[in-house]
């Protein structure tokens, strides 16, 4: 690692000359993934001794940007400049050598190692024999911990520390390289009030040391408290940037959600029938509490909220993946709280998960085997497979969903994200369910397939299926739902009919801004 102590020292020596020259600049950064343009022409400047808040909806491209800055991804086009000269981050180590370091939402630390070992893992100071210089490592660890005001023993085992202390170790680790730019990705998401206060102090301290800080957060109160500048992302592009002192909350929200609804959603006249699902007082020890709602045939019920609001966890509990600690679930009037997915499927409730690769599909198996997996019992005779029936059923749903594939025997993993999603949805429809839960149904799906999934969702509702759609995309929520429930920190904070619902109402409810929405306040 070729560190450049001269530059780093000069930046640290002159913390008060808040120059107009940015430490790090992004110019015209483009990054695409198959079928999706994650970032298009991003321009961003980070200044020494200043906190820049990065704001945007889920999926706006914030995480992609962080990965570009830490050497995980490479940009397809555009330039990263450090102190005015072009830089490339082919690896994480290269980014660290340039003084760009990140504190992630969930940092990987090692429970069995000591605090000092965790801080210096991968770049421990060596003695002249090439072995780890333990005394020096402990000394330097102590110095770094002191610099961030953490009263931790470098020799303590990490497993003996609480979550907040572990977080401090993660921060110390990020600062163990000569950092010029510190990226904090939702650093307060897992912290209590007191710990958040301590984190703010730490941020102030880093500012005073002349570091440029990129602070990613969904919480408006903390952005206004801590940031000097803002940058708003929407759909992979930057839609606004400037000084915090020149903007208010309302205009930030407007920028975040945008005015135009760019996709076209199917026109529906919902035929809402009798109640099919009734959930009351559903609670979980850690993920959600006291959730009650009902769902009717032919209805599309949207669930909006920020990542980590407990929506997926609630749906997975309804599907029998995890057990609720309290609450009753009635399906078609009968009290049935599924204890396993198999029971949920029998009861007519199915769930297409957000994480298709891990949970939704067996990608190494052929399309038809994925599609028939939950329906094998019905398709087979005396437990024996009947391939002809399997292909016929698969063909039926492939045609209905306009699947694009070379053959039905093709491994599912070879299809595009959108077509994989079609198979996952088809798999559940083949079980002839009463209720289908779609968790982020168009995440990672290209624009064309997105429209197909939306169209299909509308058709299903028209046929009398009850649909729950978990989504973090506001246009999708507003374009598809008949009714919307907003969750925040594991609780329902609002329930709205589609008529009269605006993006501002949703964003405010999800972020906990403003008044008059359900119970709540900070816990």
């Amino acid at each position: 690692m070729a560190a450049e102590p001269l530059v780093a020292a000069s930046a640290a020596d002159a913390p008060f000359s808040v120059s107009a020259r940015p430490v790090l600049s992004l110019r015209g950064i483009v990054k695409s993934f198959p079928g999706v343009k994650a970032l298009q022409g991003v321009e961003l400047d980070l200044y020494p001794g200043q906190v820049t808040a990065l704001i945007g909806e889920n999926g706006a491209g914030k995480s992609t940007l962080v990965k570009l800055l830490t050497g995980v991804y490479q940009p397809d086009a555009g330039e990263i400049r450090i102190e005015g000269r072009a830089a490339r981050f082919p690896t994480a180590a290269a980014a660290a050598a340039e003084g760009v370091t990140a504190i992630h939402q969930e940092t990987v630390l090692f429970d069995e190692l000591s605090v000092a070992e965790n801080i210096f893992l991968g770049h421990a100071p060596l003695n002249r024999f090439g072995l780890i210089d333990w005394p020096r490592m402990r000394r330097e660890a102590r110095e770094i911990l002191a610099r961030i005001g953490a009263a931790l023993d470098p020799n303590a085992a990490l497993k003996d520390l609480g979550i907040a202390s572990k977080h401090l170790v993660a921060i110390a680790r990020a600062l163990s390289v000569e950092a010029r730019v510190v990226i904090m990705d939702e650093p307060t998401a897992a912290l209590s009030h007191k710990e958040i206060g301590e984190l703010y102090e730490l941020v102030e301290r880093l500012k005073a040391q002349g570091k440029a800080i990129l602070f990613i957060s969904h919480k408006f109160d903390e952005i206004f408290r801590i940031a000097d500048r803002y940058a708003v992302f929407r759909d992979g592009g930057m839609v606004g940037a400037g000084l915090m002192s020149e903007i208010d909350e309302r205009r930030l929200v407007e920028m975040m959600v945008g005015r135009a609804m760019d996709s076209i959603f199917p026109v529906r006249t919902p035929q809402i029938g009798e109640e099919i699902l009734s959930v009351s007082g559903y609670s979980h020890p850690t993920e959600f509490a006291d959730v009650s709602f009902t769902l009717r045939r032919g209805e599309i019920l949207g669930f909006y909220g920020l990542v980590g609001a407990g929506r997926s966890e609630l749906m997975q509990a309804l599907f029998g993946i995890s057990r609720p600690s309290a609450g009753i679930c009635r399906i078609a009037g009968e009290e049935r709280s599924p204890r396993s997915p198999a029971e949920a499927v029998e009861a007519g409730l199915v769930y297409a998960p957000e994480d298709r690769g891990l949970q939704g599909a067996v990608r190494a198996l052929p399309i038809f085997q994925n599609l028939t997996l939950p329906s094998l019992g019905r398709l087979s005779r005396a437990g024996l497979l009947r391939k002809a029936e399997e292909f016929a059923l698969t063909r039926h749903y492939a045609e209905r969903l306009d699947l694009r594939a070379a053959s039905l025997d093709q491994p599912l993993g070879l299809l595009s994200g959108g077509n994989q999603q079609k198979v996952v949805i088809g798999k559940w429809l083949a079980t002839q369910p009463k209720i289908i839960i779609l968790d982020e149904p168009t995440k990672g799906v290209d624009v064309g397939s997105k429209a197909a999934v939306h169209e299909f969702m509308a058709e299903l509702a028209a046929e009398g299926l009850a649909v729950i759609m978990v989504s973090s995309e506001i246009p999708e929520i507003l374009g598809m739902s008949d009714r919307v429930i907003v969750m925040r920190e594991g609780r329902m904070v609002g329930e709205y009919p589609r008529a009269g619902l605006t993006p501002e109402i949703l964003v405010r409810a999800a972020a906990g801004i403003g008044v008059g929405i359900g119970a709540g306040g900070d816990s």
Partner: protein
Amino acid sequence: MTMAPPPRPIPPRHIPDRLNGSFLRRLKSWETLLLAVAAAIFTFNALASPYFLDPWNLSDATFNFTEKAMIALAMALLIIAGEIDLSVGAIIALASVAMGAARQMGVETTGLVLIGAGVGLACGAFNGFLVAGLGLPSIVATIGTMSLFRGIAYIILGDGAYGGYPASFAWFGQGYVWGAITFELALLAVLAVVYGVLLHGTNFGRRIYAIGNNATAAAFSGVRVRRIRMTLFMLTGLMAGIASVCLTSRLGSTRPSIGMGMELEVITMVVLGGVAITGGSGTILGVMLAALIMGLITFGLGLLNVPGVVMSIFVGILLISVIALPKLLEKMRR
């Protein structure tokens, strides 16, 4: 404003069930490679030793692999599902000791067979409980039960040996059903068909592949993953019990060291047969061809008076080269 759903003049696009060229794919398959290897070894043996082609000699040679191959059938399913059972050799010992002890109390042939198979099934159920019930990793759990089962066998039997099995019991390991076809070979053939259908033609088999490729997604698709894992461990234990009946009958006596190290030969057979050790793929045909290859090598080298140590070197080299060959070819192509 209401709109009728748009008409769809375009007929849905046609997607074929399967693509052509399945013959070529079959030609390139692992099973074809194994078949070629088996044929080569057979030819080599026939040329190298004049005694090789004698039907009774060949028949004797099948004892090299029949018992292991029975266990390999169930082990293949278990490994495809992403699990493993290292305790099968120890299960053979415990089942054999149980039969020997029962014989001392005067139990007759039918009872002995039921006890052998039953002990195997019970041991498998215990493994299944540890893995599917308590969630232990199968490699750790079955290393534990490997010592446990073998240890119990040693405690019961000490340094001694059980013998005195009834004459009718000897048929399972020494009898012939038709001409030179042994009972063991016939049983293996029947079991191979049963397992082939089970893995390739039933819901159960399909779910095994789903679990082995992605257990989480399988569970999210309503597959009862734990129940299937439990069943697979019980099947493996049962097959080890049946193998114990055959082996005990063939040897005519029980020592606590019986079946020692057999688990590794069984797993070698399964892996050589093309089952991915990481789970998710493999066929029964491949495993049976691998069993045949290993039997032919052992027998052929035996006829040439090659010592056992050299044989194991040979099997080791064969395993590594057959596994490494496709990877090497792939690298060279790049």
